[in-house]
């Protein structure tokens, strides 16, 4: 058994290792590759992008800015002779198609803004309580247990009472109640990760608490944020429907919730298109978020390789 000198073996070993083993991929790149293979996730991703685009364009006023003008007689059934009449008209003869598009803008903005509010709170409180523990943890846990034991709908109603009706109070109400789920997950992860060697090592080289939290642990748990974002987005869209049913929803402009609420009077008289329009529009984006959320969870979860 000839054995070449020790030194050379090490180099060749590492070279060979580099050659053969797949290039080290970060969690995200790995997830990206896996997602690329999942056709369903891709379709859903594009659906969401399409909705976001429509929402953005309506915000700028490219289409459906004239949703208020009457385009035909009241309650005209859907017909293909013009884009406005695609989904028929409502009680004032306004185009249901334009209202659905406008509703997209409302839904996406409700989802986005409420997530933008709730995610930082969730991450901050979750990381603080998970990392520092002791009294910080007790306070945060007490706060979110209290908040989560109050039924969500009642909390939303109460907050909209406080802030008055309208879209801003929906943003804040949803934002203020949705962070609990994320905080709980982040807290659990932080408690797990803070004892991990890489964190202790970072402490060893003098990293401060803040940098440990944000530079070291957070990137390792950030995939939960994305997963939670998809759930939060979907929950926000559905909550808007319930709030509109209770009369606390968006004021003075059409949203899917408002349209579905109108429909409850109309279905009995055979006017189904406003309900169908809003439900179908909402169905696809919620479906897309669901499926994308799932495949993200599978792709980003290191365990399920």
């Amino acid at each position, binding site marked *: 058994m000839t054995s070449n000198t020790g030194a050379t073996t090490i180099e060749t070993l590492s070279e060979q290792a580099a050659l053969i083993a797949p290039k080290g991929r970060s969690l995200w790149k790995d997830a990206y590759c896996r997602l690329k293979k999942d056709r369903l996730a891709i379709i859903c991703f594009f659906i969401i992008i399409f909705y976001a685009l429509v929402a953005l364009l309506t915000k700028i006023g490219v289409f459906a800015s004239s949703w208020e003008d009457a385009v035909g007689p*009241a309650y005209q059934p859907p017909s293909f002779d013009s884009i406005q009449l695609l989904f028929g008209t409502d*009680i*004032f003869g306004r185009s249901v198609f334009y209202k659905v598009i406008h509703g997209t803008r409302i839904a996406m903005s409700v989802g986005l803004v409420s997530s933008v509010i709730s995610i930082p709170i969730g991450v901050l409180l979750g990381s603080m309580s998970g990392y520092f523990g002791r009294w910080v943890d007790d306070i945060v846990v007490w706060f979110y247990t209290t908040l989560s034991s109050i039924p969500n709908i009642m909390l939303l109603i109460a907050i909209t009472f406080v802030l008055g*009706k309208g879209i801003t109070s929906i943003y804040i109400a949803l934002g203020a109640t949705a962070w609990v789920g994320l905080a709980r997950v982040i807290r659990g992860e932080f408690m797990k990760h803070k004892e991990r060697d890489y964190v202790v090592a970072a402490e060893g080289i003098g990293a401060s608490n803040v940098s440990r939290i944000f530079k070291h642990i957070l990137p390792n748990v950030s995939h939960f944020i994305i997963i939670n974002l998809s759930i939060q987005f979907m929950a926000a869209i559905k909550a808007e429907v319930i709030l509109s049913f209770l*009369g606390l929803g968006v004021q*003075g402009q059409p949203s899917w919730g408002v349209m579905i609420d109108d429909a409850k*009077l109309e279905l*009995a*008289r055979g006017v189904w298109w406003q309900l169908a329009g809003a439900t179908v529009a909402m169905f696809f984006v919620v479906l897309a978020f669901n499926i994308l959320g799932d495949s993200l969870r599978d792709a980003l979860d290191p365990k399920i390789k």
Partner: protein
Amino acid sequence: MSTLRRFTISIFIGIFVFSLIGICGCTFKSKTDSSNTLHLSTPSKIKGLDPIYADDLYGGTEVSRTYEGLLQYHYLKRPYTLIPNIAESMPDISKDGKTLIFRLKKGVLFQDDPCFKATGGKGREMLADDVVYSFKRLADPKLVSSGWWIFDGKIVGLNEWREAASKSGAADYSKEVEGLKAIDRYTIQIKLIQRSSQFIYALAMSFTFVVPREAVEQYGKEFINHPVGTGPFRLAEYIPGAKLVWVRNPTYRNELYPSEGAPGDKEAGLLEDAGKPLPLADKLIVQVFEESQPMWLTFLSGKLDLTSIPKDSFQQAITPAKELSHDLQSKGIRLIKYPELDITHFSFNMTDPVLSKNKYLRQAMSLAYDEDQYIEIFYNGRALAAQGPIPPGIAGYDQDFKNPYRQFDIAKAKQLMEKAGYPDGKGLKPLIYATLSDTTSRQSTEYAVKMFREIGVKLKVDTYSWPEFQAVVKNRKAQVYAFAWGADYPDAENFLQLFYSKNVSPGPNDSNYSNPEFDKLYESALTMVDSPERTELYKKMARIVIEDCPWIFGAHRMGYALIQKRLKNYKPHDFDHGRAKYYKIDVPSK
């Protein structure tokens, strides 16, 4: 895959259970009820069955099935005329109109109930003391009845009795009240502080229905759910919020179906049962429908004999049927339209600096609001555009008067805007517009916003729940708001009092209109008996209000009811809630 056999079986069990629910659901055959039972509906939860709390139309209807008052409205005669109910005859009124003497019918029994321990559960005879007790109960401050306004400041000594009760913390029912005395077992004397021709109507309202003292004391807090009255029906089953079942009261006195009515009633077959003892139906099932879709579908499936669109939600719900569709007519369903004694309107807050001084602005907005299109969209054309505060059907309504500020005219409205100092709305801050959060109100608001935008008037819309809305209006926090007023009694005074300066918020005058000249006419009319002079006075007052435009007059809604073929003797009536006793089920034609 044989080893999977047992595993897939458990799946089939799951699916089987799921479909089991579906299938055994179909065993539910829609049982059509052939017995002499009336199926009615009510659109909102009944808050309770105590007369002094029956402040809404639906509470009043249910309460009047088992309780009765001194007087009632004749079922068929129009215009509405009062006739005795548990009173033997109409009251003797002194010359100065301040003293009324009522004689009670003898032998009127309360329904049997365990609370009558003295007579072993048998219903005892209703006496004058019961009437006095019931009126005092309305005045009891502890009970906080919303009907107290009908006696407030009207009966001699009653306000003092109420003061004493609230100071001492408990109402002393044995204490005598000067203006409310039982002279003997069957006679009651009422002394008024000043003559009032409207007071008599109060004695036909559900607030003044007679309740037995024993029941109130025995059931205490639960009395609200345990009615004991003298009326034609007694409560058999009560699932609060879902269903009430009334059955014929065996000890009901011998009351007959009226034998004469308004012209045209005979031909309409409304006098077929003249002289027959009431009530004609054995049983009433009243189902609560909060949402209109289930109510409408239940009616269409034949399990509801009568449906009328909720009147009380002041924005009339959109009528489910555009026109009575062909298949409904083929099922023998009849559509009855009838003018209602009410008026929808926008109110301007007359204490608001911008609106109160600027009559032209108000008139411009009034001209810019297209009522006819509103009626077309929201009431399917079934409403009358209001020209003034007084609805048709009562004295004081001016048949052929056209309100100059209610003929939809954008050009004129724009001119007035210039005269008001806001050409095309420039310089006018958005007006704070308060409204309700229910679906119909939201749609009406969208319509209003579109209308006023034409002349540059922008609205800042705030939506509220009903109590909040009332609080905002009563505390004068909003500038413009939509309201409706239903008549409490068939007298134009009930509408004109909405402009009397003493009734400003939190009273019924929600636009806080005050005009000394109007007040003078109003006070003089108050003491007059119904006569051509008084009607002339009413018209004059209406003219003042029309010119000042504190309101944008909306519409006098046409109530409408859809009736199944088997329901007979239906005639719409604005006040008499107890009319179910006149309905008849034509069983064979079921």
